């Protein structure tokens, strides 16, 4: 296995086109454990971190541009990003330990294509776009379209993601992410849930997105959530409001979980409802606080 660290997009695309067995990487926190676990080594690994576009982080013209190869520790330490997208930063801040966050990136978390990736539900809830480069030039895709199944993406072999473009939050808009694991650190989500809520001047919900992790082969959006939550003043969860039951039913309808050592399918359906409610309440509170 050879290692190369191109310093431009063109150089990286050329390397990938010339070497069919090549694979890009950023933090290697998925790549190296998988190789250690017996997965065949790529013939060439292409380090994306020296390409300036992949490590840029800035807000411009109504968008945040977040480099796909920035380590989580840099994202969680960034005050502007944390204020804009607290839920995305919560997701990135839950990945592994401090050591793992010193390396783990949003691009790797997405393209490893695990249904339990913690930063992916917030990216989807925020309507983030992935900017993808490759032999065919540059294109963009919704983050929700990048992963097509466990360990499978829609990117071709010469393609990689340079950055995520996330619409800057409007006044009255915020997000949240929570996951459930059996201990407090160093485990993979049994269920994760992200929510983005926009409220009007009276604190009524105008738009909502709810996205779940670890309950289906890919991250799933609860598309009925917006219709159920629109027009509501979202209080703390209370069993008295019928719309919480509707939201719970919509969540369960999106779940297609498996039984494994972390939890049974039935347990995952229950936890998904609880986490969806909690993140909706948190995102709505944060959204009201921006008014």
């Amino acid at each position, binding site marked *: 296995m050879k290692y190369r660290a191109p310093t431009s997009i063109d150089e990286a695309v050329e390397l990938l086109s010339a070497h069919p067995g090549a694979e890009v990487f950023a933090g290697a926190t998925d790549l190296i454990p998988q190789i250690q676990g017996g997965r065949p080594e790529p013939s060439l690994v292409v380090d994306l971190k020296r390409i300036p576009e992949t490590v840029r982080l800035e807000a411009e013209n109504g968008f945040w541009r977040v480099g796909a190869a920035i380590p989580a520790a840099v994202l969680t330490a960034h005050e502007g990003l944390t204020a804009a997208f607290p839920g995305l930063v919560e997701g990135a801040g839950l990945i592994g330990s*401090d*050591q793992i966050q010193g*390396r783990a990136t949003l691009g790797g978390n997405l393209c490893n294509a695990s249904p339990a990736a913690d930063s992916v539900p917030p990216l989807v809830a925020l309507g983030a776009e992935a900017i993808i480069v490759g032999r065919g030039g540059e294109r963009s895709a919704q983050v929700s379209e990048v992963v097509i199944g466990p360990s499978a993406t829609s990117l071709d072999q010469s393609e990689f993601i340079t950055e995520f473009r996330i619409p800057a939050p409007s006044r009255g808009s915020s997000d949240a992410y929570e996951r459930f694991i059996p201990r407090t650190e160093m485990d993979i989500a049994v269920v994760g849930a992200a929510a983005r809520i926009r409220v009007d001047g009276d604190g009524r919900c105008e738009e909502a997105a709810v996205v779940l992790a670890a309950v289906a082969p890919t991250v799933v959006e609860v598309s009925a959530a917006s219709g159920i939550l629109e027009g509501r003043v979202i209080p703390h969860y209370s069993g008295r409001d019928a719309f919480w039951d509707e939201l719970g039913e919509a969540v369960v309808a999106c779940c297609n979980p498996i039984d494994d050592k972390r939890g049974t399918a039935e347990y995952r359906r229950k936890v998904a409802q609880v986490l969806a409610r909690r993140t909706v309440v948190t995102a709505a509170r944060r959204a009201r606080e921006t008014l």
Partner: protein
Amino acid sequence: MSRTHVTCVLNGDEIDFLCNDYQTLLSALRDELGMIGTKEGCGTGDCGACSVILDGQLVCSCLVFAPEVEGRRVETIEGLAEVDHLHPLQDSFLEGAAFQCGVCTPGFLMAAKALLDRNPSPTETEVRYGVAGNLCRCTGYDKIVRSILDAAARMSDPERQKEAT
């Protein structure tokens, strides 16, 4: 196969070494440079025994390819003590009996250093999260956590610092 020549700053000194591209930083440190203070537990990012600080960021050296450190700054356990005295974390670990077999200790010390560099007076909870990526089979963690808190107190108390030096 031709080997790759890497130049980096290791514990403040510019050094160079030869490695194979598939080698990890952990393997380059131990097998090419003879710096065996950094330990290998799992090789997959779970135990933290291999923790080093790379360009100011705490990382598992078992999850870094050796050629990646070209032009970068690497800090290992060998660079923690000053020429004539230990780092306050090392003093606290010794006095607090924060190790038994010692295999996890270099990793805990580097994780604790990264934590205190960022947050000089952490709460107990912050310390526990700060070393959540480090496993210890011997101590039961409590003495480690207390020693890190003690070092933080030492480092923020000028009197105790004078005493140490």
